[in-house]
């Protein structure tokens, strides 16, 4: 469903992504881990079109999207959330989701009729807010929401298009244990046909969610395998898991 071959990206002389191969069959839950600066978010940006690779190829559902900008990839079925909340801070929860729904339904070209007339769009946005547990916050400007709630909306906005492939960049970062628990439930509840690639520092979350895991280090794939293989790997333990012991939960 999502395949990357020999992706490279350098910033100046620093090779942030150095020949990464990745292949996700439909419906797979794939974890992406690695120490800070391993190039996880850069790889996400290459996959979603925020950045163009220096070389290599990105295939989405068999279609070469290497040179397609992020809006084209989004329309082709790729959704993503961002590591830092990337919302419309002055707009309300309802308005954030209405924008997402309006873009998804292609009604944003309509300039001659009031947006409030598109009741189906507003109703759909409200339904999605309720599904995210944000039904009480519809009229709250996003910047007034708690960090964890903004994080939920961040994922919710990525889900509006019902993507075929979803990239989640550290969905539980900065969350309290209860919020992490709620997020985990949300991720587990995603449709099984959805292909999921998830960056996460919380190993409990990643081992719980992922079918397979890719470990990234200095822009290269250190290891790719099942959670058991990753857990058992001395190299990964040495490079990543061991380093973090006692530092992050």
């Amino acid at each position, binding site marked *: 469903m999502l395949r990357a071959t020999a992706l490279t990206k350098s910033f100046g002389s620093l090779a942030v992504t150095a020949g990464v191969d990745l292949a996700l069959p439909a419906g797979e839950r794939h974890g992406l881990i690695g120490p800070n600066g391993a190039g996880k978010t850069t790889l996400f940006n290459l996959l*979603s079109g*925020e950045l163009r690779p220096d070389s290599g190829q990105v295939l989405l559902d068999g279609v070469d999207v290497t040179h397609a*900008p*992020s*809006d*084209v990839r*989004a*329309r082709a079925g790729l959704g*993503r959330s*961002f590591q830092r909340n*990337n*919302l*419309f*801070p*002055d*707009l*309300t929860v309802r*308005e954030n989701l*209405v*924008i*997402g729904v*309006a*873009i*998804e339904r292609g*009604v*944003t*070209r*309509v*300039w*001659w*009729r*009031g*947006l*409030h007339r*598109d009741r189906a*769009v507003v109703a759909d946005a409200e339904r999605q807010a309720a599904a995210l547990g944000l039904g009480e916050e519809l009229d709250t*400007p996003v910047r007034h929401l708690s960090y964890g709630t903004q994080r939920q909306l961040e994922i919710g*906005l990525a889900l*509006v*298009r019902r993507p075929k492939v979803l990239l989640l960049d550290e969905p539980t970062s900065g969350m309290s244990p209860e919020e992490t628990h709620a997020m985990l439930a949300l991720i587990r509840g995603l449709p099984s046909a959805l292909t999921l690639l998830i960056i996460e520092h919380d190993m409990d979350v990643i081992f719980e969610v992922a079918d397979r895991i890719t470990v990234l280090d200095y822009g290269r794939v250190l290891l790719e395998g099942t959670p058991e293989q990753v857990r058992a790997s001395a190299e990964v333990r040495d490079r990543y898991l061991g380093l973090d012991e006692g530092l992050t939960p």
Partner: protein
Amino acid sequence: MRRDPLQIPTVVLLVLAMAAWWHGADFYVHEVLLSEIALFAMLAMSLDLLVGYAGMVSLGHAAFLGIGAYVTAGLTVFLGWPVALAMPASALVAGLAALVVGSFVVRLGGVFFIMITLAIGQMVYAYFLKAREFGADDGMSGIPRLDLSFLGLDTADPAVFSAVLLLAALAVYLLLRVVVRSPYGATLVAIHQNEGRVRALGCPVHRYKLGAYVLAAAIAGLAGSLTTQHSSFVSPDLAFWTVSGEVLIMVILGGGGSIVGAAIGACAFLVLKHWLSAGESWEALGLPTFMADHWQLVMGSLFVLVVLVAADGIYGRARRLLRRDGPQAG
């Protein structure tokens, strides 16, 4: 996107105030003040679509005013077109110019967009300054006004023509109100807030920004056509960057992000300008009349003051007193 409870009362009040002023006005007020307010209100409202809604701060809006003015001048004086045809042609040519220019510039953001629109505005100015066929720096004169004799109206009468201009400004307001309340307008606001996320949601943002740029330019072209009819004269100065700067100041003064706010900005700026530059007003305050020569200094200080106490402009501040802020419908 949110309802703005202040909007309709403000518009009704503004329309009534203009109607009353028009009714009691003398020759000077019709010919100069009301006409200028209507023309600049059109420019400010269209620029607000870019600045306040889409977040595209242009310092070259006067280029399209100039293009519209020269198109009407050229078509009527050289080719003898009726003004009623030259007007839509002016809007069309200005819009097409914006389509060509915008295809490149809408990709730029922030200060780069400001500088490139400024540069393009100055290129248009420089062209008209040297274009002998359009009278170069002397400009052109003898541009006729819209013929409304079939309605029994004589547009040479300043009262009639100022009414035409005010009604045109009202029509521009109504059009832009529809646009900013639409899904398209909401998308522009979202692009302003977070362009990258709108793109990640699947929206080709450059095309949306280009659409706003073209619409704003077409309205400026129409305003240019009316400006040249009003003065029966056109000169390169119309396209000079200081005109763009004044319109931008009007938008900021009135409050970007609401169309009626931009119109209020144009009114406030022009009323103040005429009042401050008249010796009598200073005399009435018991101050020396030479202050009238320094009206720009006083105006500049007032502008700084407004920005300090109300960064969201006169209308934005008033609205904030009533409700929370943020871009609004209309």
